[in-house]
């Protein structure tokens, strides 16, 4: 059977199940008696196994099956949760993840049998359940059977209710086909097949049912149509008429042999019955109006199969742990969103063109309000809203990037033999999808860094009177047009003097220079490529690739990172990321006759500075602003142009900030605020990072974007 069309769904859902397993297993490890967690785990493992089986991934199926056995034993109380068991289960989970990854890359599960893990699981299962081993199987079986029977019993009492095949309306030609078959000595059967409501690939199951029937005959008609079944446009049941050679029990057995089929009811039809099938059907359908309502209400029209499944699950006879209602979502290829985004960008450029044309019209036309200007303003607000809406579509919670960290910290805890605890807040903070995809690695580096370098070992912590268990935290929150992610620990903090001596020792800077460097400069060296503080190289961090990679990754996303640290109390890395990548609000300025854009995010105020206010500190120009000394940077010098302003005139200073640091950028003229679309300068031009990109103005002219962060 060709299952390739289900591969995408399989991968998506498998990943979700793996994540559920990982999350809940961590909870279970902490709270071995948590029934919700074990139920959730069991459900995820079971679904995963079923899906793997359907897709024909035997190894994956075997491994999940053995895991499920363990969970089942834990759930029934025959086995207790030990750290040894959890270790093996986590290994098994890693192996499953490995399979899924291989499947994603090659659409095949590979040939790693992971025998050692399977054996280990079985050994633990045997020893854990002790002599009960034999009983366990027996005890588990009835439990499972009872589970399977429960819904069946509830529904199967009046058989005619389930015989929905009687409702199929046959047209004349179909009737004739069926009659001809009976005349020629074949059997005509009507069947209604019920698929388990937990089934994830019901279309695939239905397909297998059709195949099973077709081994001994032909399906003449089905309800819903075979096309609808293939497209999953049906509830967990379907009806059909088939012409078969075999007797009805055999066909029924063939149908039931397909896994995840809950029940199949059917009967043999005679010629008379074919002509008048609806009589019985009427009563049948009338007797179950309520049930039909129930079945039809959550029809997955919106494309949200999981939500519908959830609703049905809780309404049905089975009672899985009640989960919060899943929000209605659809999966969209990110390329489609990119296209949409590009179109919005084009629209904004076109809008800017019209805005500037309309403005020049009003200027020449004597300043009266004309309808064009009003409509242009309308257009402007529509495009801005459209842009925001599209951006919002692209926003996803950072959850997907951070959810693997609890597991990672657990592993680090064992590896480093330090007690540590990870707290995450704000995982629902949203960021552009592309940023979320990229931010995982840098954050992982920071957490490893905290675990390895930040936290002291347990003995030292006790000695220092700190809690034995170290805390690593990850806090995410939105701050204006930025998202801030803080990663830190309550460890030792950065020992600036130790770094300073290391700098000298490694010949990174001369003793003289190093001694003159401020604490901040010293800490910044940690972000330089090739500089590592680790006394010994571990496989966790300390190869001298780490913080520099973190920094460059974050900068490539348009963000920046800074550190706050206090010796003995811990350090915090503060990562600041822009909410959006492509379109920003900018202040347009003129320097030496050239137009530049400065992102509004980095600007705090704009000041008019009399020349007399400029002081010199260490040969550098500074101004005092409300008590703070701020260095001023003459953009004309940085950009290599002649300022058009006279030396005696007041300066226009755009005050920008990076973290806590302020600076005043001196420009010749202000043009005003504008929404700009960021375009890359391409890979061929090597500029010195002051220019972060370009944008196209309303008149078609290209203006460069100044990265204030690079200037400070």
């Amino acid at each position, binding site marked *: 059977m060709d299952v390739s069309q289900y591969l995408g769904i399989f991968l998506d859902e498998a990943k979700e199940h793996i994540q559920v397993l990982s999350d809940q297993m961590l909870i279970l490890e902490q709270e071995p008696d948590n029934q919700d967690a074990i139920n959730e785990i069991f459900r995820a493992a079971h679904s995963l196994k079923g899906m793997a089986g359907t897709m024909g991934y035997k190894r994956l199926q075997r491994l999940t099956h053995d895991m499920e056995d363990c969970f089942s034993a834990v759930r029934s109380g025959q086995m207790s949760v030990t750290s040894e068991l959890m270790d093996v289960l986590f290994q098994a989970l890693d192996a499953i993840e490995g399979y899924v990854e291989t499947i994603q890359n090659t659409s095949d599960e590979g040939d790693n049998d992971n025998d050692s893990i399977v054996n280990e699981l079985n050994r633990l299962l045997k020893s854990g359940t002790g002599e009960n081993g034999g009983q366990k199987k027996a005890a588990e079986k009835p439990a499972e059977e009872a589970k399977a029977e429960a819904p069946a019993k509830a529904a199967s009492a009046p058989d005619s209710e389930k015989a929905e095949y009687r409702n199929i309306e046959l047209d004349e030609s179909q009737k004739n086909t069926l009659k001809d078959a009976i005349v020629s000595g074949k059997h005509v059967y009507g069947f209604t097949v019920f698929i388990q409501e937990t089934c994830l690939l019901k279309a695939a199951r239905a397909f297998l049912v059709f195949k099973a029937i077709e081994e001994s005959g032909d399906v003449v008609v089905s309800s819903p149509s075979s096309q609808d079944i293939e497209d999953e446009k049906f509830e967990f049941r379907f009806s059909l008429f088939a012409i078969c050679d075999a007797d009805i029990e055999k066909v029924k057995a063939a149908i039931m042999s397909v896994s995840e089929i809950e029940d199949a009811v059917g009967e043999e039809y005679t010629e008379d019955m074919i002509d008048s099938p609806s009589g019985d059907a009427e009563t049948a359908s009338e007797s179950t109006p309520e049930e039909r309502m129930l079945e039809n209400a959550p029809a997955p029209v919106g494309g949200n199969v999981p939500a519908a499944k959830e609703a049905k699950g809780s309404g049905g006879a089975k009672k899985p742990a009640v989960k919060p209602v899943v929000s209605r979502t659809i999966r969209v290829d990110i390329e489609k969103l990119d296209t949409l985004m590009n179109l919005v960008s084009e629209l904004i450029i076109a809008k800017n063109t019209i805005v500037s044309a309309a403005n020049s019209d009003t200027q020449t036309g004597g300043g009266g309000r004309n309808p064009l200007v009003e409509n242009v303003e309308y257009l402007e607000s529509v495009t801005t809203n459209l842009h925001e809406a599209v951006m919002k579509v692209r926003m996803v919670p950072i959850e997907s990037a951070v959810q693997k960290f609890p597991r990672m910290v657990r592993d680090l805890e064992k590896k480093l033999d330090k007690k540590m605890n990870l707290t995450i807040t704000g995982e629902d903070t949203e960021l552009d999808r592309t940023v979320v995809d990229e931010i995982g690695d840098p954050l992982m580096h920071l957490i490893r860094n905290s675990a390895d370098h930040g936290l002291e070992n347990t003995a030292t912590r006790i000695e220092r009177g700190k809690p034995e268990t170290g805390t690593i935290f990850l806090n995410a929150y939105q701050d204006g047009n930025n998202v801030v992610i803080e990663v830190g620990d309550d460890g030792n903090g950065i020992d600036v003097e130790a770094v300073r001596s290391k700098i000298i020792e490694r010949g990174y800077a001369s003793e003289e220079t190093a001694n003159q460097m401020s604490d901040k400069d010293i800490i910044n060296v940690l972000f330089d490529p090739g500089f590592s503080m680790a006394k010994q190289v571990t496989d966790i961090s300390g190869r001298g690739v780490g913080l520099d990679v973190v920094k460059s990754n974050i900068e490539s996303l348009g963000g920046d990172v800074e550190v706050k640290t206090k010796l003995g109390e811990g350090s915090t890395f503060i990562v600041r990321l822009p909410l959006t990548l492509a379109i920003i609000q900018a202040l347009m300025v003129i320097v030496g006759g050239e137009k530049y854009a400065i992102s509004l995010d980095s600007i705090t105020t704009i000041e008019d500075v009399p020349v007399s206010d400029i002081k010199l500190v260490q040969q550098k120009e500074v101004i005092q602003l409300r008590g703070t000394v701020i260095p001023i940077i003459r953009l004309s010098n940085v950009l290599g142009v002649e300022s058009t302003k006279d030396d005696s005139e007041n300066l226009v200073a755009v005050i920008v900030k990076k973290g806590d640091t302020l600076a005043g950028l001196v420009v010749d003229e202000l043009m005003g605020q504008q929404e700009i679309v960021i375009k890359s*300068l*391409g890979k*061929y031009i090597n*500029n010195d990072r002051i220019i972060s990109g370009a944008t*196209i103005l309303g008149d*078609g002219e290209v203006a460069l974007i100044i990265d204030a962060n690079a200037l400070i």
Partner: protein
Amino acid sequence: MQELEVYEEDKVIQYIVVNLGIEHYGIDIRYVDNIVRVPQITRVPNVQSYFKGVINLRGEVIPVMSLRLKFDMPEIEYTGKTRIIIIKIDPSAAIGIIVDEVEEVRDLPESMVEKKTPDKNDPGQFYITGVGKTDKGLVSILDLATVIGEKEIG
């Protein structure tokens, strides 16, 4: 008839022949995306000296370099004949090359091009992979990857 024979045994490559002063250069047409007049160029500060800046080509920002400056030739004023050849070696990154004039599109069979190994010591020969012989004179075939800096020099 003779031409046909040449065609059969020789790979013919089409070149855009451009002029810098009195010299002719050939650019493999496969890499040419477009040829445009010189629009307004926005200077980009602190970049390689031969980059004149960036232009807006139908909504795309494209860096442009002066072939004269790249070849250490004196700059001249743009005239009505000055053109920018938009090159795309990497489909996602375009770059413009400013030339004095575009002369023609010319078919050159491989046999008519004398291969040259780029000479590191002769700046004039850095960017040349060969010299083509035509009835109008010699055409230096540009090694585009080197010209636009995709490939490091020797």
